[in-house]
């Protein structure tokens, strides 16, 4: 059983889960669009922020930590974030 436990822990370390961003969620207000100034003509170009990825791959340990506050939910056969993981949230309580 010790071997089984170690195998499970090893499997957990190699296991990754795709967690999708909620497509209906507002884009993050912290996104900054950089500008470049073309010096001879003084023209400025605005480079749009890179598109938000469709999903993020997280480890089983990260999913475990997110499970403690329902940071991830399952909908339509996929896992979705319930918050913006790029924003520091601090301690969170589980609504269950």
């Amino acid at each position, binding site marked *: 059983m010790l071997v089984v*436990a170690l195998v499970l822990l090893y499997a957990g370390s190699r296991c990754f889960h795709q967690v999708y961003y909620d497509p209906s969620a507002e884009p993050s207000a912290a996104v900054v669009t950089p500008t470049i100034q073309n010096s001879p003509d003084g023209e400025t170009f605005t480079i749009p922020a890179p598109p938000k990825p469709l999903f993020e791959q997280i480890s*089983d340990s990260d999913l475990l*930590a997110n499970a403690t*506050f329902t940071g991830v939910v399952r909908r339509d056969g996929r896992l979705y974030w319930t918050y913006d993981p790029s924003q520091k949230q601090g*301690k969170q*309580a*589980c609504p269950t």
Partner: protein
Amino acid sequence: MMKRRWYQLASLLALHSAWGMEAKWLCNPVLSCHSCALAWFACPVGVLVHYASYGLFPFVAVGTMLLVGTLVGKLLCGWVCPFGFVQDLLHKIPSRKFHLPAWTNNIKYLVLIFMVLLLPYFLGEATDWIFCRYCPAAALQVTLPNFIASGLQMSSATLIKFGVLAIVLIGAIVSSRSFCRVLCPIGALLAPLNYISFWVVKPARGACIACKKCDDVCSTDVKPSARLLNGVPANRSLDCIVCHDCKYACEGRQAAAAVMAGAK
């Protein structure tokens, strides 16, 4: 027994000292709600409920539980679990004491199977039928402080949770570790590992005088004398919480130790 109380008190304080920091990626196999503002670790029950709702196998959580259980069995139940500590203290309150029938020890396996695994899997973690909605540890650590902080705002869910807490606490007063024996899903998960754990409560070889003192002090009524008389470790039982109270109470062991001391 006194030594164990100090360990339990230290665990209670240590497990609830996360002023800002936390390690919620690690499951601590004791009943301590991870929604508590001071909690360091994840509660295995909450993690299993969420993973069941995800339809995923919790490799890290189960691996951790199996590792701890294989090494020490249910030792953490007897020496670390804060809710077990609360029950032990409540049982000290003078009152009429009862022994629960042995069949009630099987209820926790149904709680584990249905309220932790199957119902979240089929109905999602938002269903009202998951263990966390009725967990007495969560009621004590999270619901009660939130209830006080919100200005005593009561909802039906809060009322039910407090009702369950009250029943469990009264049960702890009149019957030792009744929640652990009857309802705790973590105890149900770790119980079989008592039979194979490396940690043993060693019998006093050849010193048993069948005084049954060990049965009298046993917290979970698992009759250690039946095993000790046959040279089997006392903790080879599903519901033993490896508290070692039987070992410390053993008169045969004490007599043998006195003889040994006298011989020296």
